[in-house]
């Protein structure tokens, strides 16, 4: 009996740590609609700051708790600085651009933390006065766990009072409901947003600091916590603090008892919960359906038009250069350009569902990596020839996308994106866990091209054929009735519905088409690398693809091509710089990449291709 109670209380204390981070994230999203990827970084910085403050002050109860509060406030200030310097310039840009900007902040903070705080993990100080254990019917539970269980509801009540009983809270709730109306009433939104950012970041810092006695501070905390935080926010309903609390308890307890029943469930439990909750309640436990946003006129896209002649000539020129490349470039250049082409196809497939389809996916790597696995498994188990494997990979992924899509298209916006993430994680964990069949994280090796294609030039042409072929088909599809219907469904649900179009089915098929072509990219990718590992299906791979699309711009068909080229090229360039030769211990590629992303976001809020598309509108003008 005692053991069960302790198991339950342990789950609650885990839930408390989760709640602190998630509450801040939910608050920020509710008001500013920013999907704040840097939230995990704030959590990490909070942990480090508290660690240093507590270890340099004399020991004592007072210094311990003041250390935690100092850390929370410091992180709050950091949040405000980032909001003022970066986010404030971007509120007019599409929401997804904020995601990219905050992702860039995450990268920058990751490397700065390494440089400032050092590489070694820090073990957290114990909380003075709470460093023992209570005995509950023969089972011990740390006193600090009980403290956390008490503090979390207090924070919840505090937030509730703040939001419901103060003028500031009323304004915040008004902003959550309708920002434009609030602005029309003369409320200065700038400071409102800054203050929300302050509070949200404070909570993240508090979460990081308060978990110190349960573990410590390390450099992987940021990425480790961010996915969890998002899951809780979404399960609870975005913007709902009470929902975040409920979701934390749900996930904390299910994880705590889950390990009793099935110890291997640790990888996937959280995402299973999210998938189930979202399928049953599309807006989370306590979330409300999002009001249809009235897009400001400049964001309503002008319809896609076939490229004008001059622009087609540019495209043709690029194609000719690519075809002639083997005649003047080194053999490694072919490998690099081949990779860019494959990646461009993967990005184009995401663009297809994201831009014209209006469905953002955070889990596109499920189809890219899944295609790679499908091809690899076919070769590995059935010895099927390369051609067959590349042909079947997209079919398999089309089927997978039909299954996943069926659930996803019933949702919209961030909820849809998070459900794709949940499914991607479930697929990933199946591949990861089922080592007897998929090789687990030891992957599948020895998947090299057929003999006729093993020459690097031949394989390069094959890659070009598949990738550019795929891109052209996707482009063609956008100008067929299928594509027009898809775009109609994105722009309005009611109008296509009223002329007899089944909106959900249309979205479902668009989702599947995107899956097919991502699978095709994965199928050829595995032959270029010779092996495939679960990392190709991981969250970070999904974000590689997503960021590249955003980098190029979601409103222009050349966006994904430009974005993926810039992404691969940048990553490759930065990896070549021999920092260690200049006495620099770390390899600050994340800092540089993040810095460049920030600059790109500031310079091209519509994406690179989007920007140049407008800049040279005159040059490539469409004959109207």
């Amino acid at each position: 009996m005692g053991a069960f109670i302790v198991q339950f209380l342990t789950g609650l204390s885990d839930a408390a740590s989760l709640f602190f981070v998630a509450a801040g994230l939910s608050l920020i999203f509710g008001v500013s609609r920013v999907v704040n990827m840097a939230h995990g970084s704030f959590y990490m910085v909070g942990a480090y700051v508290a660690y240093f403050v507590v270890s340099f002050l004399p020991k004592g109860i007072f210094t311990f708790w003041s250390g935690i509060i100092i850390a929370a406030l410091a992180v709050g200030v950091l949040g405000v600085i980032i909001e003022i310097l970066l986010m404030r310039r971007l509120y007019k840009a599409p929401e997804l651009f904020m995601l990219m900007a905050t992702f860039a902040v995450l990268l920058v903070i990751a490397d700065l933390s390494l440089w400032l705080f050092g590489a070694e993990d820090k073990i957290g100080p114990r909380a003075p006065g709470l460093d023992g254990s209570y005995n509950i019917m023969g089972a011990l539970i740390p006193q600090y766990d009980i403290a956390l269980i008490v503090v979390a509801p207090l924070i919840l009540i505090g937030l509730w009072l703040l939001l419901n009983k103060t003028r500031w809270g009323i304004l915040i709730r008004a902003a959550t409901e309708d920002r434009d109306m609030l602005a029309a009433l003369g409320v200065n939104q700038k400071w409102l947003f800054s203050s929300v950012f302050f509070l949200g970041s404070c909570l993240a810092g508090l979460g990081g600091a308060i978990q110190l006695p349960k573990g410590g501070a390390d450099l992987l905390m940021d990425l480790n916590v961010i996915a969890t935080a998002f899951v809780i926010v979404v399960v609870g309903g975005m913007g709902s603090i009470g929902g975040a609390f409920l979701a934390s308890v749900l996930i904390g307890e299910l994880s705590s008892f889950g390990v009793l029943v099935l110890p291997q469930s640790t990888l996937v439990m959280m995402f299973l919960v999210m998938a189930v909750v979202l399928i049953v309640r599309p807006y989370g436990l306590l979330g409300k359906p999002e009001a249809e946003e009235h897009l400001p006129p400049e964001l309503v896209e002008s319809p896609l038009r076939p490229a004008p002649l001059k622009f087609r000539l540019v495209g043709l020129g690029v194609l000719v250069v690519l075809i002639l490349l083997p005649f003047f470039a080194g053999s490694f250049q072919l490998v690099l350009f081949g990779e860019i082409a494959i990646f461009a196809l993967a990005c184009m497939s995401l663009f297809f569902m994201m831009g014209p389809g209006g469905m953002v996916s955070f889990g596109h790597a499920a189809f890219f990596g899944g295609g790679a696995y499908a091809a690899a498994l076919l070769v590995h188990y059935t010895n099927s020839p390369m051609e067959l494997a590349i042909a079947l990979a997209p079919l398999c992924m089309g089927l997978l996308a039909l299954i996943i899509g069926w659930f996803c298209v019933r949702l919209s916006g961030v909820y849809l994106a998070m459900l794709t993430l949940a499914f991607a994680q479930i697929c990933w964990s199946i591949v990861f866990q089922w080592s007897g069949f998929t090789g687990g994280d030891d992957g599948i090796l020895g998947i090299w091209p057929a003999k006729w294609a093993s020459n690097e030039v031949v394989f390069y042409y094959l890659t070009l054929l598949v990738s550019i072929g795929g891109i052209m088909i996707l482009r063609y599809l956008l100008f067929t009735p299928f594509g027009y219907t898809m775009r109609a469904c994105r722009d309005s649900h009611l109008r296509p519905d009223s002329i007899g179009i089944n909106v959900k089915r249309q979205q479902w098929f668009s989702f599947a088409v995107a899956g097919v072509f991502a699978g095709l990219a994965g199928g050829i990718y595995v032959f270029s690398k010779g092996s495939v590992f679960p990392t190709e299906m991981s969250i970070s791979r999904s974000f590689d693809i997503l960021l590249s699309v955003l980098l190029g711009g979601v409103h222009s068909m050349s966006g994904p091509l430009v974005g993926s080229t810039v992404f691969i090229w940048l990553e490759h360039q930065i990896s070549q710089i021999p920092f260690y030769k200049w006495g620099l211990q770390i390899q600050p590629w994340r800092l540089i990449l993040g810095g460049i992303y920030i600059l790109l976001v500031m310079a091209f809020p519509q994406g690179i291709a989007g920007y140049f598309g407008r800049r040279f509108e005159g040059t490539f003008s469409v004959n109207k």
Partner: protein
Amino acid sequence: MERYGLILGVVFACLIGFFVFPAAGQVGGTIRIGEINTYSKLTNFTIPYRNGWQLALEEINSSGGVLGKKIEVISRDDAGKPGNAVKIAEELVRRDKVVLLMGSYFSHVGLALTDFAKRNKLFYLAAEPLSDAVVWAKGNRYTFRLRPSTYMQAAMLAVEAAKNPAKRWATIAPNYAYGKDAVKSFEKVLKTKRPDVQFVAEQWPALFKINAGSEIEALSRAKPEAVYNVTFGSDLAKFVREGKLRGFFKGRFIVSLLSGEPEYLDPLKDEAPEGWLVTGYPWYDIKTPAHTRFLKAYQAKYHDYPRTGSVVGYNTMWAVAHMLKKAGCTDTEKMVDAMEGLTFDSPFGPITFRKIDHQSTMGAFVGYTALRNGKGVMVNWKYMDGKDFLPSDEEVRKLRPQG
């Protein structure tokens, strides 16, 4: 907007500059070696490793290099992605014309390179990846591995653990290939030594996302007498702290893989567990002349003490140098032939690269943890030579694809 565009332009121009210059600055007359590792992540392991091979490189080149030439190492970062590692390997081979590859930390990156080496008939010395598959299930003629594998380290612990009377065992290991292999090997070796033991509970926390409290409670319900732990890094810290507070370690015999390595033990500071049976590297107490010389040189150059990774890096570089001397040329087939059976002296004593599976016999230290001056150390340790902890030749032939 234009302002940012300008800054961007400058940044891109700089990056393009890098593209052009390194190739132009290279001079002939050196033996070029490609090195790939995860320098941008897990810096607490990879930086000591780099220090190690750079020290060895300096020693090799200051004594005249090999084959009358100096060795030039082109070191690259794979960011922990196997796809990147393969791309960089292509670049090192095709553009930089390296004669061989070495390095890598993660097992999946190591395996991707293992396969790359096989296909391109390229010599590859895996430095740190622990996966047994590198030399066994996926082993090939062109791949060698230096560090004692998961199996070897688990076997060392199991042999010692068998001396303890405990019969009921529980295991906790991160939920990925390394954790699974480490548990499987340990169970196998312990059961052959002690058929009477039984494994009564297991926990598989996600890597670096341990729910230490819940998992410890789950383990204690099975009332084990002994626990085998494979978690490391931040998971280990949480496991240790929660375990102490929940009285989990009291009266239990704890065996823990790699926890005696300074990389993992030192961050625990004065909370380092006492009396655990661990594998590791007690650099502070090893008094052999070979190690003392290495230790002095390392401390003089870096003003820091070596970690396990430092010795791995140092041995990797020296292994390559000795192999090149023996081969007398940089022809891949001859280098492979020279590496098979190569024996050289390392800070840990003589190491041989076995002909049968290309695994080195580098060993590890097995001992008990203790606290000394508020720091975790290993005591009562002994060096376990890797050659004594590998399966029989017959078994290895079964594990490794032949021909």
